[in-house]
């Protein structure tokens, strides 16, 4: 068995989630859009799942659109927001968003949109004054994360949303890393659109959802059939939807115990910082998700650390999984203005409800020697 501390990359499908899905991967294979009751009965399962997801978010079931992943949710939200106010050509986002936001914004810049990328300070926090200063009457969309995938730093979404609202801009939140880890109540929030992804909260890969506030003039991104009340074409991913519903239900229960994850995370952080010199918690001074820590190990390189951890059966990451093919340092840590010694040597550990104290102890046991060995190789050590 591995020690899996890479839950911000993806999570284990909860066995109860899989159990809920299985009938829809075998006997109950009908198409919910079909006219026969064999297909129709599946429709009821989808509506139950919609209620479960809505309940986790404090939303209404009709405000939930099922789709295929967080990236689709982000792409869809941006396009929908621009379509809702086509005369406005300005977007505000942050420098530390996920590629599924940044790549769309870069693309739109080529199409004549103006994009403001808000900066973050060394703790990974936004400056709301900078946001206010960037807002104009031509701002169609403000899109920010709820919590950062690399550092876990939480943005003040309520305040950001209030500012967006006062300028008549749509506010979209990429909550892929936040859903299931912090309580969210959209009923009382200024958030218009919110993205979540199943596989980050113990549902399977290949399913996601987009929250669209009731009354929002939504335009679909994937065009075709009338599924999801014409808001997302494509035959329903019934097992995935049922799984996401169950996962949402379980996440809601688990939210009450998330403090345990934070305690294990703190134990990990404290252990590393006290036993290994020249280490620092990136974003440590800011409000953070309970499950995430991003630690900089000076003078050594992240990939080398990961391979050493890998040999011990410990899964962690540097940067986000979907950019791990790239050799550039994390755009998030770069935006935080961290020194090079930290930029190239930072590791993210992300816990889940399955993480045990024994696993944390294992990391604390092996980590000092790994760092020592790599530092012994490094020309920069003790320079």
């Amino acid at each position: 068995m591995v020690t899996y501390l890479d839950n911000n990359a993806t999570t284990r499908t909860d066995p109860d989630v899989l159990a809920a899905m299985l009938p829809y991967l075998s006997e109950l294979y009908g198409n919910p859009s079909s006219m026969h009751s064999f297909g129709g009965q599946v429709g009821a399962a989808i509506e139950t799942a919609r209620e479960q997801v809505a309940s986790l978010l404090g939303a209404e079931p009709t405000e939930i659109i099922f789709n295929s992943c967080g990236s689709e949710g982000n792409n869809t939200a941006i396009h929908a927001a621009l379509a809702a106010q086509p005369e406005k050509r300005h977007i505000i986002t942050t420098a530390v968003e996920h590629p599924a936001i940044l790549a769309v914004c870069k693309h739109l810049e080529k199409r004549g949109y103006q994009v403001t990328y808000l900066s973050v300070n060394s703790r990974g926090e936004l400056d709301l004054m900078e946001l206010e200063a960037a807002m104009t009457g031509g701002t169609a969309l403000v899109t920010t994360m709820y919590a950062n995938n690399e550092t876990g730093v939480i943005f003040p979404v309520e305040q950001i949303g209030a500012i967006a609202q006062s300028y008549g801009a749509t506010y979209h939140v990429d909550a892929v890393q936040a859903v299931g880890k912090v309580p969210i109540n959209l009923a009382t929030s200024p958030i218009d659109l919110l993205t979540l992804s199943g596989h980050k909260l113990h549902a399977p890969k290949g399913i996601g959802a987009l929250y669209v506030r009731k009354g929002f003039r939504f335009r679909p991104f994937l065009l075709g059939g009338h599924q999801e009340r014409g808001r997302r074409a494509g035959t329903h991913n019934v097992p995935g939807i049922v799984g996401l519903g169950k996962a949402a239900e379980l996440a809601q229960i688990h939210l009450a115990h998330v403090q345990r994850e934070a305690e294990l995370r703190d134990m990990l952080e404290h252990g590393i910082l006290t036993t290994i010199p020249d280490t620092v918690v990136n974003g440590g001074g800011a409000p953070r998700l309970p499950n995430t820590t991003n630690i900089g190990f000076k003078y050594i390189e992240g990939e080398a650390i990961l391979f050493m951890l890998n040999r011990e059966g410990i899964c962690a990451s540097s940067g986000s999984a979907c950019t791990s093919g790239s050799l550039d340092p994390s755009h998030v840590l770069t935006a935080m203005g961290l020194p090079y010694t930290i930029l190239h040597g930072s590791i993210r550990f992300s816990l889940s409800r399955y993480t045990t104290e024994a696993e944390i102890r294992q990391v604390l046991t092996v980590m000092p020697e790994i760092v020592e060995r790599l530092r012994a190789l490094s020309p920069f050590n003790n320079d």
Partner: protein
Amino acid sequence: MWDYSEKVLELFYNPINQGTIDDPQEPDVAVVYGEVGSIACGDALRLHLKIQQSTDSILDARFQTFGCTSAIASSSALTEIIKGKTLDEALHITNQDIADFLGGLPEAKMHCSVMGQEALEAAIYKYRGIEVEHHEDDDGTLVCTCYGISEKKIRRAIA
């Protein structure tokens, strides 16, 4: 996950010839080091050579590397390859030779081997007193040079 060969992983987990070389202050023996990259670009290699002056050959080689798995393995491989070679022979070693010694490198990681070749050149040129271009910024901090100077060589290596 990078697709590293067994050899890369072996030399990463158990690198040989790591460290520095003390100058023994003996006649006919010189110690030099060559350096490429910087902490800014995420890769840096300091290659130490012990040279027998009469035969113009490499008696010992050691490395210090800040970098990824393949950078560490490439450095270690390089020191193995060049030991016993004359300096002229060593100058003919290409990054492809390093990659071959390692049983291949992922395409995106070829530059890690280029770094080895460049450090070797830097060390030998320094020993021979040949000026090498320095890629220093106005304020004296190294800018990211490993891509700039390596781009063509990487292409050559991949082609």
